[in-house]
Every structure is written in C-alpha cells, then in structure tokens.
C-alpha cells in the first residue's frame, strides 16, 4: 500500500462485500408466501443467488416478500431497476430465473413473455 490510489482501489473491491447494508441498486424480490414456497420459490431464490455469484454481479439486492394475492401465478419474481418500472414475472421456473438475471438484471431487457404486471415507480 503505497499511494492514495492503492487504497481507493482496495476500497472499491471491499465495498461490494458490505453493499447489502446500503439500500440501493437493482432489487430482485421473490414471493415467499406459503403459496410461493409451495410452488418452489426456495429453489428459484437459490438459483438467482447462484447466478448473481457466478456472474459476479455487483449492486444487486435480493429480497423476499409475502403473498400478494396472485397465488395462481407463483413463483412471482419482481425486478426493479433504479428509475424504471417494477416488473412482475409470473410462473417463474429455474430456467426463467436464469433468463431474468441474464436479460433483465444484466442487460436491462425485459423478459416480455413472462411479464404479468408493471407498476410505475415514482
């Protein structure tokens, strides 16, 4: 460690490890109500967490939520990119989950065939 820039480089690297404690970035929200869990939400969550780790994605948060009433459509996964609409995907399976991460989270392209709702964010 010889210069201020060395320190700044180290800081950028270490920052990712505690990013979870800052409530920012892209949010992925998984429905973990009884209905969601019964439909396999746990497996979807593990898949998403694996994908994030494999792709070494920074700035992504994974949260869970309870039942929002569309039990028929479980597993539900929502993606919110900062400044964009909240997109709800329905009947998500393992493959869909991987596509959602690769397309929407990474590249910002909505996976249209799985979308069941859009909510305007203000």
């Amino acid at each position, binding site marked *: 460690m010889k210069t*201020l820039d060395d320190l700044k480089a180290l800081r950028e690297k270490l920052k990712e490890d505690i990013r*979870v404690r800052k409530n920012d970035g892209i949010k992925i929200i998984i429905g973990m109500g009884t209905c969601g869990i019964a439909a396999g939400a746990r497996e979807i969550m593990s898949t998403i967490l*694996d994908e994030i780790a494999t792709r070494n994605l920074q700035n992504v948060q994974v949260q869970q939520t309870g039942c929002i009433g569309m039990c028929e459509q479980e597993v539900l996964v929502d993606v919110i990119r900062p400044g964009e609409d909240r997109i709800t995907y329905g009947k998500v399976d393992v493959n869909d989950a991987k596509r959602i991460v690769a397309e929407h989270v990474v590249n910002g392209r909505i996976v249209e065939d799985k979308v069941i709702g859009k909510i305007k964010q203000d």
Partner: protein
Amino acid sequence: MQHIRAHVLVCGGTGCKSSGSEKVEAAFRSEIEKMNLQNEIMVVETGCHGFCEHGPLVIVYPEGTFYCSVKEDDVKEIVEEHLFKGRIVDRLLYREPLTQEKVPTYSEIGFYKKQERIVLENCGVINPEAIEEYVALGGYEGLAKALTEMTPEGVVEEVKKSGLRGRGGGGFPTGMKWQFAAGSVNDKKYVICNADEGDPGAFMDRSVLEGDPHKVLEGMAICAYAIGADEGYIYVRAEYPLAIQRLEVAIKQAEEMGFLGNNIFGSGFNLTLHIKEGAGAFVCGEETALMASIEGKRGMPRPRPPFPAVSGLWGKPTNINNVETFANVANIIVKGADWYCGYGTEKSKGTKVFALTGKINNTGLAEVPMGITMKEIIYDIGGGINDGKKFKAVQIGGPSGGCLPEHLLDLPVDYDSLISAGAMMGSGGLVVMDEDTCMVDVAKFFLNFTQSESCGKCTPCREGTKRMLEILTRITEGLGREGDIELLESLAKNIKETALCGLGQTAPNPVLSTLKHFRNEYEAHIMEKRCPAGVCDKLANYVITDACKGCGLCAKGCPVNAISGTVKEKHIIDETICIKCGACMTACPFKAIVKA
C-alpha cells in the same frame, strides 16, 4: 458459491452483551445453519448502536429492519419468518414511546432522526474486528491523504481551521494543541490517546473504541504525522476489556495492512502504537497524572507549565487528546475544515456525543450537532422522562459539571453557553433527574465521588472536598446548621482557585450549581429538617395510612418500639422515638406505610 443476500447485524457492545447478545448471535448462527441458509446470509457482530435501552439490538439488511430486545428464543422466529420467508416479525419492532407507533427501520426511529453521526458513523454499521469493512467505508483515506498530499503544517492548519475543540472536557482548541507540540524541537515526540473515561454515566469513548477502533487509530496517526511523533500510547481503563481486545485486534490488522509501522504509504513516516491499561483511578484522566502512570509512577498530577507539548511523556514533547477528539480527525482531513464548520455554532464546531442516562426513556448514546437545545436532546431524542414523571434537572459534565434546571432547557448546548450557565460540556455524560430526586443528595453523590478519587497531593482538594462532604452529609441527616450554605460556598471558592489540577478545581461545581438553582432545597433540609423529594432517609417522616389492617407486623419489625396500636385497628408511629430506619415500611404487607 452463492451471493450473500442478507446481513444480520447483532450488536456486540458492552450494553448489549450484558443483556445477552452473545447468546442471540450464537442462536442466529445455529438457526441459519438449520435452515441451510449459511451460504446466503452473513451474521456480523458490530459495535454499539447507542440505543442501549432496547438491547440486544439486531438489524437485518438489505431491508434495514430494526429489532429490539431480541431474546435467544426470538431468533428461531426471525430466521424462519424474516430471513426465510421475508415476513417482518412485527412484535419485535421498536415502538415510539409517545405514540406507540411501530417503526420498521433504523433511519425512521425518533432517537436517530435528530442525530448527526460523524464520530459514530460506523458504530453499529461495521464489524469492528474487520479492517476490511472500515476500509470499504472510506477508512484510512484521511491518513493516506495527509501523508501523500499534505505537509505536517498543512494538517495542523486544517485542524485549526475546522475549529475542533477537545472533547474530553476542557474544550481546548485541538489545532492549537497540535501546533504547540509540532513547534517543540526534539528528536523524539509522543502522541497519546486519553481513553481513561471515568465520569459517572459517560460511556461514549468506550463505545467508539468498541465499535470503530480504527477511526481512533487513524486520528492518532494523522496527529503523529502533524506533530512529528513516531510512537504513541492509548491509555485505556482495564475495566474496558472489550475495548482493549478490539484495539489489540485493530492495531495488529493496521500493521499488517501497512497503516501503522514503518514507511507508511511510502512517505518515510513511521508510527508504533502501544496500549497501556490503566487501573481505573479517576485522576489518571488528567493529562500529567496519565503520563506519570504510563511512566510507571504513581498517577498524580504535577503543576503546569511545562505543558506536555514542551515536556510530556519521559520529558519529551507530547500531544494528548481524548478518544472522541481523535475520532473526528480523519473526516476533517478527508472532507475538509469547511465541511466540518458546517455543523455547530460559531465557537463550537461539529458534533458532540452525549451519553443519556438516568430517568429517561431512551438510555443510550446520541451524537448531535453543537448548538441543539437540551430540550431536543432530552425529549425528541431521549423520548422524555420515565413513567410520565416531571423533569427536575439534568446533570451535565459529570463530577466536574453542574445541573441545569427546567428553565434553562432551551439553552443551546455548546462549550460557552454551558459554562455561562454554571455547568460544562465535560465528556458529555447526561444524567436526567425527575421530581423524585433530592438535589442535595445528588451534590453529595458527586462530591463523594471526587472526594474518594482525590489523589491527595494538594491540600485544597484532599482536605477541602472532605470538609464539604462532611457538611453535605450532616445536612442530609437533618443536622444542618445555619451558616452551612455560606461555609460551603466559601470552601468551594477556595478549592476552585487553589487546587492543583482539573479534578480539584472543578470538584465543587456540582455543589455550586445545585446551590444556584435549588437553594430552596438546601434551606428546607437545614431550616425545616425536611427533604422535599422524600429521598433523605434521616429526614423522612413515616406515616401509617388508612390502608392499615392492624396486623401488627410493623410494630414487631420496629427496632425501637415506636409503633403502637391494637390488633385490627390502625397503628400509629411516635415520631419522637422513630429513628427513620424504614423497617416498618418493608414489614407492612399492605403498603400502608408511606414516607411523607
């Protein structure tokens, strides 16, 4: 490998540890493992959040959910409901005392809303035993900037410009102190951190050391560079084992990463830091006594000058600042003096950490900008007085400080306003007192403290405080005489003017300030032999109320046979015989005996 999606922060400050946070943390680890979530959830032990009243505290990120008073038995529910299913466990959320409203996240709680956390910015946010987390939040950038981009004179100038004043009590301008030490020519100089926090009710330095030790090390290193020191000591009480342990870990990690040691940041600047454990004598918080103690001598102050900046530890130029002062330095260097001056008042810049204790709802640590009113601290942050009682006074500045009564609550809290009101900033301990507190008894308590902590070197302090304590004791025992108040005042004046060090010079302050604001209570004790708050036992009158069933247990319990009466009828206490021991009150099963 999986993405870590959630962090569970369990407070590991001394306050939360004593209410069982270690068991809570262990339970989290085992429950998380049981649910097979250990690869996606991280459990972190942090330093103090300051909200000690409601410990053990647990914060779950990314939501930032704030759980209070978490017991070992609650952990299973948090893991199953919140961490697995995402359902917040409602019953463990904080409720605002006035509205009973539940508050889900950290940042929305009234206790934190009015705070401005600069010194405490990382406390409760990072793992104090992981230097990586400190660096991730910008740690050691101040040191790097000072060493690679600034001259020592530039650093002193920046600290001077910031207006930072000593947070340990005196409020001496820090930059000036550094300039004196920097100006002393010598091949060996020392930097010392005074962590001998001893005021009753003050625990902010402990919390900073426990929660963010690197911030203090960084401040010391910047100071050492500015004054030209290559060796330093942290003088910390042995009663703070957790703080010592975390400091040891922090120094080792900083050495490994090259923030301490030789040729730091390639600048040719070297620094070695040692920890010196103090035995807990209050007088060792005085800088000359502290240095004597480090040298292995008896902890006694010596007259100044020479000041430590000229002749300090082992006769070498030395700069001493307290923990909170050093914790401000890194931010001043990184963000600049102008940024720092944006907080506070004209003559008191920045923030101050206060330890809220006594009869207040939110016991804990609060960092506020200088100039905020005492009312805001006590009511908006502290949540008001316990059990809906009436506020009487707040003692500020510990045994060297004074009491502020209700009509002074709108006073802005800064160094100079407090001095003019007969109190002082001190280290920032606030003891809140309600209507059930006897002010004479309070003065006696603090004087008893300084009297027993007096080192005995100078006569005014050794003998003077002893005589003052004798007078206060006899006043509270109903033996006060006319002229006692005047005698107290004259003793106080003499001690203030002639004692050798700060301990003696400020020891009479609690007596003087209670005399100033609550003279009528002293008079009631002396003239009417009455304690208005009903605290002083020897002045209490015990009375049997109509709730008496005539069981006779009180009469049996009375050691001087002062109680008479027939069975099944109300008994009577003969006040001329009664010795006010209170045994009858304890003996009565119907709570029919009260102090009047």
